[in-house]
């Protein structure tokens, strides 16, 4: 927690930073694993025939699931589902991190078999006072997820809070 946290010019200069691409895979097993993790009982997310009968080309990605970031030891973050190269490096010194908000805009239905390439841009940075957390740093990003044919399937905008 930081009482007097301030955004420096150096941090601010990072706005507009764009990541290298990173791959997110949507497989039948990963769709089932996500649906199981959320607690779905709808067979459309588990059984291929049921999904096809419902009009999908394969198991559909449940809402908010944009594939699983591929994990490369030594390159990926040990715990977080994002690669360090794809997240903005801001030297803020804050240890705590929380999700602030998430918005996903779908342009197409994502299904098992899709391989998505994600590119993230740092769109904004601001501070926000919190009674519990002190002065927090809120960063906003926009990530574009394109499929194997280069078609944009989804855009995700999120805010992450550091404290």
């Amino acid at each position, binding site marked *: 927690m930081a009482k007097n946290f301030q955004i420096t010019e150096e941090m601010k200069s990072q706005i507009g930073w764009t990541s290298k691409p990173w791959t997110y895979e949507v497989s039948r097993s*990963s769709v089932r*694993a*996500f*649906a*199981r*993790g*959320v*607690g*779905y009982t*709808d067979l*459309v997310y588990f059984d291929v025939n049921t999904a096809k009968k*419902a*009009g*999908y080309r394969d198991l559909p990605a*449940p*809402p*908010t*699931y944009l594939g*699983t*970031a591929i*994990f490369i030891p030594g390159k990926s973050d*040990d*715990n*977080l*589902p994002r690669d360090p190269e794809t997240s903005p490096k801001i030297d803020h010194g804050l*240890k*705590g*991190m*929380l*999700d*602030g*908000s*998430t*918005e*996903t*805009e*779908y342009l197409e*239905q994502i299904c098992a078999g899709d391989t998505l390439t994600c590119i993230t841009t740092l769109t904004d940075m601001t501070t926000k006072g919190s009674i519990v957390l002190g002065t927090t740093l809120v960063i906003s990003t926009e990530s574009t997820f394109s499929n194997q044919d280069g078609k944009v399937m989804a855009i995700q*905008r999120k805010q992450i809070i550091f404290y």
Partner: protein
Amino acid sequence: MSITWDSIKEGDNLPELKKKPGVTQLVKYAAGSGDFNPLHHDYQFPQSKAIGSIIVHGRFKYATIGECVSNWLGHSGRIRKISCQYRGMDFPDKEMTCKGTITRRWEENGEKLAELSVWTENDKGKIMTPGTVIVVF
């Protein structure tokens, strides 16, 4: 049975979705999402110790909003946009309820659309994750 755009109206409520995620459910979500932040399963993690507990993934609540809408929609339409804000922490083994209501129903560029206000409440009835969803039929 699936719903249609013609059969819904503004002010209609979505069926509620109740959950009481325990540690095992959160571990399953961690595996499914790839988010292994120890704050969601390890009571010895410094941030968990500081908070006094592990906490439910905000994204689990976000996905629950998606599930609530998906269950209601029954694949008769598609989510165009889904968003939420994380207003507070939820803890394992506490009941949460996802609720929603249709706030707008309109046609635009030949598409039949509906906007929903959807949120999760904690076991005390406090709104923890207010969200907005746009559905195209």
